[in-house]
């Protein structure tokens, strides 16, 4: 009896995993059941998660703390937030569904404004800065590397010297390629179209090939669970 209680849940996990893999051969009944189980469990988890990890710690606890601290303005502010959140329920009937536009407008507006500065700093400013100098401060168009190459012209030195300028030219080409308001007959855009595509395709191919191994290791991890951890568990519980 005790062995069953140990083996019950891991076996469920293995059966569900195998059910998912049958989808690769053909969509079938077993996969549909596993898919709907996962949908139900994940939505059920979201319900429990919303209550225990959002509503209680982020609404109920702070409101109680503010009231105990006598900070009534903040307590009311948070209760108001909860009420605005409740406006989503207005969507149940078409007549009142326009009320849900208030929480939508607030969240969309706030995060639209809130995202601008961090996105600009990390994606625009930092990347342009990194095209001028690399994190340790030495410039990408590095004269010293070229001197080193001219002193003893080995293949390695050539590559080191050429990499920096290639990156700068590559970034410029990709930036020009994505201009929207200049038609193809604009001289700069026309000559930069083909080389930009070369850089893009080499980059995408590299990124694709590189993550291949990471995806395979995911599958190996599952095989490890099904074909080594599970039999191991059976051996140790039944084998005694």
């Amino acid at each position, binding site marked *: 009896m005790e062995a069953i209680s140990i083996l019950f849940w891991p076996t469920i996990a293995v059966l569900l995993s195998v059910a998912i893999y049958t989808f690769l051969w053909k969509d079938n009944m077993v996969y549909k059941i596993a898919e709907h189980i996962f*949908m139900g469990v994940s939505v059920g988890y979201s319900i429990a998660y919303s209550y225990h990890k959002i509503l209680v710690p982020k609404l109920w606890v702070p409101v109680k703390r503010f009231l105990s601290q006598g900070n009534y303005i903040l307590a009311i502010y948070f209760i108001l937030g909860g009420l605005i959140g409740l406006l989503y329920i207005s969507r149940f009937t078409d007549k009142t569904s326009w009320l849900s536009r208030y929480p939508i407008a607030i969240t969309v507006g706030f995060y639209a404004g809130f995202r601008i500065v961090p996105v600009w700093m990390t994606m625009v400013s930092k990347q342009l800065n990194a095209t001028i100098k690399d994190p340790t401060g030495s410039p990408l168009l590095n004269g010293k590397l070229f001197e080193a190459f001219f002193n003893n012209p080995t293949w390695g030195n050539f590559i080191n010297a050429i990499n920096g300028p290639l990156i700068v030219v590559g970034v410029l080409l990709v930036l020009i390629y994505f201009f929207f308001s200049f038609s193809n007959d604009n001289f700069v855009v026309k000559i930069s179209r083909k080389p930009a595509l070369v850089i893009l395709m080499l980059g995408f191919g590299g990124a694709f090939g590189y993550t291949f191994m990471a995806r395979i290791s995911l599958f190996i991890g599952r095989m490890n669970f099904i074909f080594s951890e599970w039999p191991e568990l059976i051996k140790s519980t039944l084998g005694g």
Partner: protein
Amino acid sequence: MKKIIFIFIIITILISPIFSEKTENNEFDEFDPKARVKIIDKPQDEGTHVYVEFKPLNKPDEVKYYLLEVYNKKADSEELVSSFKIENKGKSLRFSSTLEDSTYSPWPKSRTALIKAYSSNKKGEKLNQFVSKTMKTNYSWFNINKLSAFLGVVIFLILVYIFIKKARTGTKFFIRKIPGLDAVDSAVGRATEMGKPIYYVPGIGTTSQIATLASLNILAPITRKVAKFSTPLKVPNRDPVVMSIAQDVVQEAYMAEGRPDLFDSNDVFFLTRQQFAFAGSVSGLFKREKPGAVFLLGKFYAESLIFAETANDVGAIQIAGTDSVSQIPFFIAACDYTLIGEELFAASGYLSRDPLIVGTTKAQDYLKALLIILLFIGIILNIFDIDIITDYILQR
């Protein structure tokens, strides 16, 4: 519209003069038994971060251990914020601590830091106090480290104002061809011929990600195209808020095309919040309903290839677009058409040809041209070791 931009520019001018905050000038003070203590208020913060430099001057055998304490000195109380036990190795040490207090107050307020240092023993008891130094920290009204973002937004607003004024006078703007978006009509047409539904997945992001909002902006013109052929349009969602926005957008678009009867709230439905449960369910729906055209536009993470491959397996035309740089290679490989990076954000203007939206895209182009020029200047200056561009305009 003009009013709003004017107000915004005036406010920015209003803010800028206040940001010249004064830096506290305090050098080392000597204390007996001889240690140097210096407090530095971290600039560009809200007045809570403080650096403390401590350099013991006695020889290790005279005083072996010190205890350094940092207090947040309030009107009536002294709240200990951090304490450091130091073994005297003749080296100067630098610590940082924050004068946080437990109460939440939205109003900016400056704090006073109180530093006490004692000579102490191995167990860390306070033998005799020989330092007591205070310093008032102040908060700054403008964070210089984010000047680049501020300048970028201001210049962009000026450009938007110019182009919208031009758009109002009716000048037509040119937008280069985006192959992925020209294929929308043929994809919708093909799905109608085959009598198959059309699926539109607005990504798995929430409303706090701009790519999801861009995808919802594209959903409007695409729904109007679908309404002409009255083919069923299904929109599975991962986030309830995105679902409710999508329902409003689809309903509004059908009404704009004069076909309110086509809207069925079950067609824009919520599946689950879990990333892979959503991917598994949607790929199951693809296999069962065999859609003719599939749109994958918005924020995608590692599971993007699950949508793309199953959609390809049922022979659907796929138009994908995402701003997640790591997922673009998979869409390029698996889908028929891919909107790369910023093409996703320009798509809504391209499809709806609304002069105001196209105007902002042109403003964005000119800002990029400006940044490219700035990049050149930065590189040339950098060769002469002048770093004003990388220090003040394109900060790390």
